[in-house]
């Protein structure tokens, strides 16, 4: 399986960084803990459908079981807001254009 290395050196804007520093001082908490809390609130605010999408994205990257990977692909493709049957791959777009051109007008 491919190696996965989540990015750990996230850079915040100067304003957010200052506010995070202030929050950590005022609350006497670790900055990472506050960021974790904010991310948890964000997921809750985005709703259960969004959480389902995130779960699918994680399964796609970390799940070795092919059936689960296929299910995760279907979730991402079909349940994202405004989902279409589109492809972002150049080869996929090429295939679709050729198929369309082959159909008599």
């Amino acid at each position, binding site marked *: 399986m491919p190696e996965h290395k989540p990015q750990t050196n996230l850079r915040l804007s100067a304003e957010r960084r200052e506010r995070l520093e202030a929050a950590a001082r005022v609350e006497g908490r670790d900055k990472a803990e506050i960021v974790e809390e904010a991310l948890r609130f964000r997921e809750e605010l985005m709703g259960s459908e969004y959480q389902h999408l995130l779960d699918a994205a994680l399964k796609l990257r970390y799940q070795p079981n092919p059936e689960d990977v296929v299910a995760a*692909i279907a979730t991402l493709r079909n349940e994202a807001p*405004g989902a279409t049957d*589109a492809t*972002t*791959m*150049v080869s996929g*777009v090429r295939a679709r*254009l050729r198929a369309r051109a082959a159909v008599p007008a």
Partner: protein
Amino acid sequence: MTELAVTKRCEDDLVELDPAVAEHILDLFEERRSLTPNHGEVMKRVANARKLHADMAGGRSIRAVTWYDRNRDVCWLVAAGLHEGFYERVEELHRPRELMPTPTDYANFEAERPARLLEAAVRSARKAMEAALTQPESEVQLLGAPFPETYIRVANGKLWVRCVAFHKASGC
């Protein structure tokens, strides 16, 4: 190597064009942006968007616009069309945020990750096979990260495959 992607909205642009023109744009997009994704003349009123001139024989002026997402190392084809009024239309699309990849494009891109990996492996394998055939007895790398390191060698009319399962830790 930079990954390439096409937005759904841009695919609609390509559908409107003559199929040969659309294919030509995709060819140039792959040829010019896979190695130098941040190349090309910068558009004035669309931040980080770059022009892709794709003129064809017979005087047909074809244009496209690409946008490089440096954080993800993905170059997107975001617009394509005939030269007449093209850049004005791109600017008009950009103002209501209809030009750049949408959350749906990103979700589709993520969903296609396994297919991209396989496609890259097949592409790399084809080149390696050609190299191995032209240099018999020499070992040629077939696959690298994220796949297991795999090498091939043509010798005595046979194809030998060596796959590295474990690397010996240095100093042990």
